């Protein structure tokens, strides 16, 4: 067991994949001598060479488009998109090519591409550096989408993502990069929790609170605060956003009868809507109250002095828990 920051844990996972599979290549802007703007790839070019850890031209469509070609040729590209808001020039390659190739060729061509995306806000950045674009990709058939929340998962899931024969969008919560946690570097990938499984990270009985990525920590903090008031919150770390591990969420909601979902991304058309609908379909008769979404607003990610209002925090999540429980809350007395 070693104590690693989030960023070092991903680094260690990348290193292991580079060691274990000569077909793994890393591509991205500034990932070489700089080690990435967040130092996630620190030291990898030095140890594995410029041919395997490639500083790419400043062209996101180019990074993903050439990864498609490398995958065609039998490589396993791991692409870094420097910031969430820079992914859109590559959107066409991801949606039209990466996601569809396997279906188009009926399995004859695989796209084992991992696309790492630092995402989310909370670090006081300028525009385009704090976005949560995951729903665009969960809405795209053919992609697997995961969001990691802790160093151990970061370490394990990056290797699982790289090993996957399907393309994986791997979202990293950039405001948690410096958080430290225990990492078992000897973990056996074949027995580790699979990439597409959710995890109950805090057992509880009154409310189910679903989170992923950066908000898992906030959700756990909220559960602790709620416990002080005698409310037992079960926190689920979704881990996989596409597909969602519904059996885990369903089992929890059958027990608690109440569901709160939180994410930084805007509410409308977001992942919370999809989960609320699916859980309502699957366990309508177990629900004691309507599912509650505590999310970012339907606004472009705001300038940094306002981001604390946009981002769901502990208090807003607790307000949502109160709503689910029918306790006094900010919307008490209002219909719907």
């Amino acid at each position, binding site marked *: 067991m070693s104590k690693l920051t989030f960023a070092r844990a991903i680094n260690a996972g990348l290193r292991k994949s580079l060691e274990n599979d000569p077909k793994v290549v890393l591509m991205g802007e500034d990932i070489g001598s700089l080690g990435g*703007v967040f130092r996630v790839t620190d030291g990898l070019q030095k140890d594995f060479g410029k041919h395997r850890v490639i*500083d790419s*031209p400043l062209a996101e469509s180019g990074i993903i488009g050439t990864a498609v070609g490398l995958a065609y040729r039998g490589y396993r590209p791991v692409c870094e998109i420097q910031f969430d*808001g820079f992914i859109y020039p590559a959107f066409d390659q991801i949606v039209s090519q990466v996601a569809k190739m396997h279906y188009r060729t009926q399995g004859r061509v695989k796209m084992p591409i991992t696309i790492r995306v630092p995402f989310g806000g909370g670090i006081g950045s300028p*525009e385009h550096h704090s976005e949560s674009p995951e729903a665009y990709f969960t809405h795209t058939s053919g992609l697997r989408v995961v969001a990691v929340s802790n160093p151990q998962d970061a370490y394990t899931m990056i290797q699982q993502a790289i090993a996957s024969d399907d393309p994986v969008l791997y979202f990293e919560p950039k405001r948690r990069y410096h958080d430290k946690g225990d990492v078992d570097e000897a973990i056996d990938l074949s027995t580790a929790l699979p990439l597409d499984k959710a995890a109950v990270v805090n057992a509880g009985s009154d409310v189910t609170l679903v989170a992923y990525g950066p908000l898992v920590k906030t959700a756990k903090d909220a559960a602790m605060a709620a416990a002080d008031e005698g409310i037992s919150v079960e926190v689920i770390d979704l881990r996989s956003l596409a597909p969602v591990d519904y059996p885990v969420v369903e089992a929890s909601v059958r027990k608690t009868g109440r569901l709160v979902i939180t994410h930084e991304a805007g509410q409308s058309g977001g992942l919370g809507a999809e989960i609320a609908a699916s859980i309502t379909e699957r366990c309508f008769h177990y629900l004691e109250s309507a599912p509650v979404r505590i999310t970012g*607003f339907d*606004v472009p990610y705001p300038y*940094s002095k*306002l981001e604390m209002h946009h981002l769901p925090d502990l208090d807003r999540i607790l307000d949502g828990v109160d709503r689910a429980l029918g306790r006094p809350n900010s919307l008490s007395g209002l219909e719907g």
Partner: protein
Amino acid sequence: MLTDQAGEGVHHDTPGPGHSAQNSLRTGGNLLQLVSPEGERISHPEFDVWVKDIGDEQLCSLYEDMTVIRRIDAEATALQRQGELALWPPLLGQEAAQIGSSRSLHDDDFVFPSYRESGVAYVRGAHLSEIARVWRGNASYGWDPQRINLATPQIIIGSQSLHATGYAMGVQLDGANTAVLAYFGDGATSEGDVNEAMVFAASYQAPVVFFCQNNHWAISEPVRIQSHVQLADRPTGFGIPSMRVDGNDVLAVMAATRVALDRARKGGGPTFIEAVTYRMGPHTTADDPTRYRDPIELEDWAAKDPILRLRKLLEAKGLLTEEVESSVKAKADAVAAELRSSCIGMPDPKPLDVFNHVYSTPNSWIERQKDQYSRYLNSFNESVEEGAL
């Protein structure tokens, strides 16, 4: 008056080369230089005429602008270190490229910058608080683009090259003789948008100038990762004439930019300018260039410092008097003080501002969320008052 004014600029009162000569004027891959790093004026048979109106007073004024913007840059960097700005992208070393090009513009020309063109914003007449507030995180934009004909800083690399081209197509549809100028860097030339912009600009012969500041570094990546040839060689493949100019030589930058703008206004179509300069500072205040850059390279470029070069020229001409020095210093001091006070005294935005201006007309989703968040914020006050919840 900071910029060339329509009716007063060199284009009208200077008998430049004939039209056909102008339209073919290019540097042929050679670096255009009108002032050597040692501060000697180098005469050029074709380009001299484009700066012949730049007399003693104008040279001193260029020196003042470059010195002031360097001071703004230093002050903003200090403000970031002190936590007053969230981030700052320094332009240290690029003063000649930015001041020379922006002072060649007419007021009614329209400019699309990247995020590093604070020198251009200053010349165009942006207030210091307008330059600072985006980097402080107090606002999503700085100045009113329509007031100073300068678009907001573009963070997505190269996007603005297409916007400039489209604006220029609009100018063309209007039958106006306005020129449009897009700033971007060496890294941006790899983006699809910049290449598509050149396709559109060439196809429609749009009156746009692509002003590429090759500062040699895209964060940690040297320019050789972006291009196997000189950047100025690439636009010719699109059918766009290009010039390669010493970007640390303010006179050469002015001459080249004036040629390009004049060509645009006269229906000669787009031009690409590669201004060869150097980013002497970090990419932003969040960057650490010691991780990837040889300090010797920085020393080499420090010897070609654009302000130092202009000082040498002024000295040789006997223009760098105590009076000029003290007046420039006083101006820089005053501007720095104003930047600092406007930054520190800036009021924070109000919480519900987060919902403003998403749409131009009322929107039911936003209205509902704004109402709910307002109730949420109020619930804290009520809970204090009522001691409940």
